[in-house]
């Protein structure tokens, strides 16, 4: 983790080094913008969220703990959480021009899951996701990539809320034991 160049950039940001912050942005923004775009599906929203998140990353850089998570994981979590807040605003203009957000959501077809083999962790996660039941996998993928909450998942999958909660819970438990088994 210490070999991660983002870690030293983040540490420099904590010391209020503006040049390091710009480099951190150049190195990480395409990934995080891709992530925000994937979840929000609207470029203007994704731009707003990205902007807010980098200001947040700058403000909170001193709180980053290298022992807890990798820099990209920490930053991606800030972006995902902000995207979820954004999607769940009290009065979101949820329906975008291209159509209903939920209807346009692809199920667990190819898409990002197919791209998981890019790293060893990705391969292991892919194998563990594939070991899940279809519904569990679909629910987890929809939640992660489309920012759906339990109740939105239930509506999207046309299943009772309790059922969907159980899928998610069991899916996560199995995922964890599979990942821990390596």
């Amino acid at each position, binding site marked *: 983790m210490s070999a991660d160049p983002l870690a030293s950039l983040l540490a420099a940001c*904590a010391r*209020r080094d*503006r040049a390091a*912050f*710009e480099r951190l*942005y150049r190195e990480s*923004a*395409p*990934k995080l*913008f*891709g*992530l925000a*775009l*994937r979840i929000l599906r609207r470029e203007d929203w*994704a*731009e707003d969220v*990205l*902007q807010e998140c*980098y*200001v947040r990353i*700058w*403000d909170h850089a*001193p*709180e980053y703990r290298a022992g*807890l*998570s*990798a820099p*990209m*994981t*920490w930053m*991606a*979590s800030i972006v*995902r*959480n902000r995207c*979820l807040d954004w999607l769940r605003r009290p009065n979101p203009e949820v329906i975008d021009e291209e159509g209903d957000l939920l209807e346009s959501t692809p199920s667990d077809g190819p898409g*990002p*899951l197919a*791209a*998981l083999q*890019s*790293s060893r*962790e*990705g391969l292991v*996660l892919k194998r563990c996701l594939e070991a899940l039941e279809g519904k569990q996998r679909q629910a*987890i*993928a929809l*939640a*992660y*990539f489309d920012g*759906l*909450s*339990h*109740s939105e*998942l239930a509506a999207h999958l046309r299943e009772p809320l309790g059922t969907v909660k159980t899928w*998610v*819970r069991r899916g*996560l438990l199995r*995922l*964890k034991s599979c*990942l821990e088994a390596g």
Partner: protein
Amino acid sequence: MKLAGKPELQERLAAEYALGTLRDGARARLARALRGDAALARAVAEWETRLAPLADAVAPVQPPARVWQAIEARLPAAAGSGWWDNLGFWRGLGLAASGAAAALLVAVVTLSPQPPAPAPAPVVLKAPSNEMAEVYLAVLADPKTQKPLLLASANYRSDQLQVRTLDPAMRVSGKDLELWALPAGKAPRSLGVLGAGERATLRLASAAERSLADVPALALSLEPTGGSPKGAPTGPVLAVGPCVKFW
């Protein structure tokens, strides 16, 4: 949120928070609980790490240049090293502080809020009860507009610093205002985080004649809730000004 002694519940909530399926209320409660609960924060970080390859699998997209421009515009103005490391800044303040307290009071009177709002409220410091006002006084102003934003005073024998903020507009939700002593040639020292009210009383480490004797200036910065996590200012500096003996 009471999760101590409930490892299974903690694990489940951490997983669902990291995945993002919790409802708004539960999400917000968990986000708050995260700040004070190291075990929960660790459990969430572990789940974020488990799921991280999913984020990696999303194709990168170059954001338009205006995003970086907007970010840069929102960062605190000071470029390079922090203002508190800047010796010139110090000397300037030292000079300012050597001016007479009378000048300070004149400044307070003349620098009334700029737009003639519904009759600018006069800025009045209540004089301590003893005839000789033996107080330390500080008037902190916006470094750019010179508009006074905060008054602070302490009787020289007292360890109570009375603080009054003059502009509610400088408050930002989710952030706290923190007041700093700027001792000459030394690192800033926190005097405390201001509450939500217009007035606050901060406890000094000792009587003002000791704790403020080597402090030519104070500063006010915007910090994460609860104050700077580093013990040094991290956020933008909203106001600075001399702190002088008035007797």
